[in-house]
């Protein structure tokens, strides 16, 4: 009833290939956008911005980058955390070398460093496949984190070995540093994440995205129909690492404010990989759903007992939290191995035929 598609006729090819051929999808997106642009910023507290909204957006972007490589092009990567680190360190160096540079430009440029590194580590992907490629990206993970620790130039010879975000103004508004307000940072992140998502949706729908899917489904067949495997895989590594690098720069500059090398270690890579897998490989929306489950849900679970007036020991609460999230992940993967995006697709199908299923 809510999702009735009867009566929505397409009279030309353009309408048939629109991003949202069903009107309700467009309405839903509009509602989400209004929430993100108006409702959340007006109602959210400092805590909601810093612990829920901003991290969910940034992790979604990182998962989106990984999803392009793993979900669309089928190349499993375990180096996401390190590529995020490349973006963050590149942005830090750019900002400290050219303090007058616009932060948006610096974040955009830092993605290219990460893309270059990603493509370099993606070169072996023509020869090694599957789990073996995962091991090669694992090497990138170890090497890059080691480099962040040992190459003191990267953190400007800071005694603690950490990078710290300076105060940055953009068009007279403070966007980064301790005195920046959360609402500005939220809009900044939302803008970048929105742009990247738009770009990602379009690239995955175009001929490049099709060539990725062909390579993912069967690379020999793809080669036989004339797809240049190396080119296609390298573009996937480049685009994916670019997005991941941008998310890394946002991660440090718009959220954390400071970062030490081991922040970009394997746990971060796994976290992003889990978001992508649980959200749904080969989907754009899944990254957002996955990030909500993995990043926001633990935070929410942490405040529920207090809000209900239950007095639970902090450590017990943490243990409970880990157990609940773990159980949820297992349940989701058993009930729907294709992730939350597929989950939503099924719900949508059912809504379309509801209340008169055949």
């Amino acid at each position: 009833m809510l999702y009735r598609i009867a009566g929505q006729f397409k009279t030309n090819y353009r309408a048939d290939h629109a991003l949202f051929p069903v009107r309700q999808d467009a309405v839903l997106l509009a509602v989400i956008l209004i929430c993100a642009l108006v409702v959340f910023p007006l109602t959210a507290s400092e805590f909601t911005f810093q612990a829920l909204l901003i991290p969910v957006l940034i992790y979604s972007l990182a998962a989106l980058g990984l999803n392009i490589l793993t979900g669309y092009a089928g190349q499993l990567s375990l180096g996401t955390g390190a590529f995020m680190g490349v973006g963050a360190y590149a942005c830090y160096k750019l900002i400290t070398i050219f303090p007058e540079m616009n932060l948006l430009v610096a974040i955009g440029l830092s993605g290219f460093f990460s893309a270059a590194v990603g493509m370099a580590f993606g070169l072996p992907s023509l020869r090694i496949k599957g789990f073996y490629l995962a091991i090669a990206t694992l090497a990138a993970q170890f090497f890059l984190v080691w480099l962040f620790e040992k190459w003191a130039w990267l953190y400007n010879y800071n005694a603690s070995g950490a990078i710290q975000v300076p105060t940055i103004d953009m068009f007279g508004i403070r966007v980064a540093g301790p005195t920046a307000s959360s609402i500005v940072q939220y809009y900044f992140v939302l803008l970048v994440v929105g742009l990247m998502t738009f770009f990602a949706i379009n690239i995955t729908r175009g001929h490049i995205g099709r060539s990725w899917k062909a390579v993912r489904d069967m690379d020999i067949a793809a080669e036989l129909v004339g797809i240049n495997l190396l080119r296609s895989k390298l573009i996937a590594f480049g685009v994916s690492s670019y997005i991941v690098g941008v998310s890394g720069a946002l991660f440090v500059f718009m959220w954390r404010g400071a970062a030490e090398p081991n922040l970009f270690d394997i746990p971060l890579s796994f976290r992003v990989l889990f978001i992508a897998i649980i959200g749904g490989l080969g989907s754009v929306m899944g990254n957002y759903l996955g990030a909500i489950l993995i990043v926001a849900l633990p935070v929410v679970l942490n405040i529920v007992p207090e809000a209900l007036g239950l007095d639970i020991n902090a450590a017990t609460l943490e243990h409970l939290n880990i157990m609940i999230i773990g159980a949820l992940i297992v349940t989701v993967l058993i009930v729907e191995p294709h992730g939350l995006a597929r989950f939503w697709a099924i719900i949508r199908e059912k809504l379309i035929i509801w209340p008169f299923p055949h």
Partner: protein
Amino acid sequence: MKTFVKTAMLGAALGVGAVLAAPAAYAQDSVYAPNLSYRTGPFAATGIPLMDGQRDYILMLNERDGGVNGVKIDYDECETGYSTEKGVECYEKTKSKAIVTQPWSTGITLQVLPKTNVDKIPILAPGYGFSPMANGKVFQWAYNPPASYWDGASMLLNYVSGGDMASLKGKKIALLHLDHPYGKEPIPLFQAMAEKHGFTFLPVPVGLKEMQNQSAQWLQIRREKPDFVFMWGWGAMNAGALTEAVKTKYPMDQFIGIWWSGHDGDMKTVGEKGKGYKSISWSVPVADAPVMADIKKHVVDAGKSLIGGADDMDTVFYQRGVLISMILVEGIRVAQDHFDTKVVNAEQLRWGLENLKIDDARIAELGMTGMVGPFSTSCSNHTGHSGAWILQWDGGKFAPISDKLTADAEAISALEQVKAMEYAEANAPWPVNEACK
């Protein structure tokens, strides 16, 4: 249909989160002092006794005296698991009503340090954090009494040189440290001292992943044959280092750790073989201190404590936790007297922490004679530089073997000034309190 229910529940949970923004109401006759604890995760073994000590001292005060001057202290824990990300989440969660932030890790301290100027909440990081925080002109909201890592480093050098720094000339000193902001903290001071007094300084970093397998590091130590090995270790790294030191037969009496590397629990895994290992400490466990008897009576025997048994009360870390809470409570008390108010706010507590006067008489009044050295803070000195003792492991417990050591204040404050200004410049615009001498 099952799927519907699940999604609905998920959505509801998220909705609740967005609404929960407003802080819950709290009683007016208490002050809220949260602690960013870590009773879970890789460092839990070292965290638990410290948190227990902190918690039990405040519970004891609430039981025995009804709080401080009649105001109960609402002690609360927010679990971080020593993760910086969770730490910041906890900081954001508690900051609306908290009068203090106890970050409990150098990483979290570095992260929340720039925010305190904006949020106006004092950071209390006793014996850890960023050493230049001692400079109160630059770090108006941060406190690390009674001794900073640089104090610790300087006292270690004083101890091994027997008070005569010139005797270190030509010697070689290795620093086995965790490759993390915490472990790197003393390096600038060691480098400055090495240059000044002509000894060779050799940092040996231990990565977070190598904590339990330090064979490479100890191979390097065996090759280099340093005269002394200092250790800035934490959690599993301490036990790992001790096991390797025993294996490589490095003389135990030349091996000294910082105060966080002197944990009874770590030593028990090495037992007798670790005999002779030393650790510098600004706190000394005193089993028969009156304050410990009160805690035992009001908290432990009443079954309100989280510790395993009364034996655990004599450990170095538990008693240090008690002292840490004492510093916080004294800050509250000083602020109450000065502002003539019962319920202090964060800004008043800042003044209190800046005007601590913990002399021998006060320590005796608190029932803590011998547990900590006297110290006082001021507007420009946020550390107090109390001094420390060398504790030695006798196979069953830690016992003090030295007189109280003091740090080379001159060398430290010069370096503090330089590094604090560097920090302020890197984070410009950074407010500096020029009024303070």
